[in-house]
């Protein structure tokens, strides 16, 4: 094997069976193949280390267009595989020098990975984000304007300002409480749940404050049921705008850390 060739890992599965991956291409358009590793199977493709080795990645990841192409290519292989068999997505930029060295690393974690595959088998991930709707959950908030009569304009201003601030604080509190309630409810409906840090407005593309960024592991055939739970929660919580994405491969449930909540 040439020194310039590396192996890019997408996902780990127990057994791909006779799934046809021949039309699946990954990063840099390379053909995706399967590689046996410690009794498991890894979806991989061969990459040029001049472009995907550590030094090159550090350099290239600074280029957002390049990163976007890479992220989408990585994700598309994982998403295509997830439709065919249970899998654990690997984090972007997991690269080995050869199939053999990859198998050696995975060998040490075989049992843990097999158990994780059991947990995600037949299940998909749904993402739920909740944004606070400004001034909602506060009927008439921002509408009332105290008469300026007593105490003069300055005092009236201060009163108005105080009312505004407390209305804001109240609507934040109400949105936070609502997000908690929604998460509790949806967690009860899911096999597992994970809370993620709220995304910045830059990442979410929405400038309203994100109150909830959660992932739920749900039976694959229960997608419609879960979506209608989310819709019901949206009706119950007018202070929140709920956003449902999915089904995703189980990105949030592939890790070994057991931080399940709910």
């Amino acid at each position: 094997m040439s020194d310039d060739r590396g192996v890019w890992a997408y996902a780990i599965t127990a057994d791909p069976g006779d799934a046809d991956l021949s039309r699946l291409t990954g990063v840099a358009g390379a053909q995706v193949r399967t590689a046996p590793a410690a009794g498991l199977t890894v979806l991989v493709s061969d990459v040029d280390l001049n472009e995907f080795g550590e030094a090159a990645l550090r350099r290239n990841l600074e280029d957002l267009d390049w990163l976007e192409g890479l992220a989408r290519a990585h994700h598309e292989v994982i998403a295509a595989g997830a439709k065919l068999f249970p899998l654990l997505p690997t984090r972007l930029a997991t690269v080995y020098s050869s199939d053999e060295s990859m198998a050696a690393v995975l060998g040490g974690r075989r049992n843990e990975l097999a158990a994780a595959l059991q947990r995600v088998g037949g299940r998909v991930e749904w993402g739920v984000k909740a944004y606070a709707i400004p001034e909602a959950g506060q009927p008439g908030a921002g509408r009332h304007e105290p008469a300026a009569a007593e105490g003069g304009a300055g005092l009236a201003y201060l009163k108005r300002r105080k009312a505004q601030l407390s209305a804001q604080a109240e609507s934040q509190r109400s949105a936070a409480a609502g997000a908690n309630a929604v998460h509790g409810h949806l967690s009860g409906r899911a096999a597992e749940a994970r809370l993620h840090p709220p995304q910045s407005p830059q990442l979410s593309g929405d400038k309203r404050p994100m109150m909830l960024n959660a992932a739920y592991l749900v039976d694959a055939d229960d997608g419609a049921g879960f979506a209608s739970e989310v819709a019901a929660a949206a009706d119950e919580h007018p202070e929140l705008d709920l956003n449902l994405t999915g089904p995703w491969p189980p990105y949030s449930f592939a890790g070994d850390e057991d931080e399940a909540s709910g």
Partner: protein
Amino acid sequence: MTIQPSGQRSVATTGAGAGHAPTNLGDILERVLDKGLVIAGDIQVNLLDIELLTIKLRLVIASLDTAREVGINWWENDPWLSAEASRRAEDRELQGSSRELEDENRQLRERISELESSRNGDRNER
């Protein structure tokens, strides 16, 4: 498969797995960079070690309109970057110069407008 037209409270789903409408880049980046199984690779790049400031800066540039609305100095309050920010602040104190801060600020702004115009160029070509 993203599901909610913004400003609308009801949640509608499009066909599960139907795969139309490109999935939101932010959601993909969050998952492939921050979730997923971490296995030690022998060449694995530890993304936590990568210059996150630059990546995040570029994420902002991808949606610069939003960035303008929230003020371009958002990263000063970003907990993700606070370690970096405080390290730089210490450096600055040691050198006892606020001049540098101004210079850096100016350079960042220039860099951003450079990147912005090159991204706009890209977009037009597509």
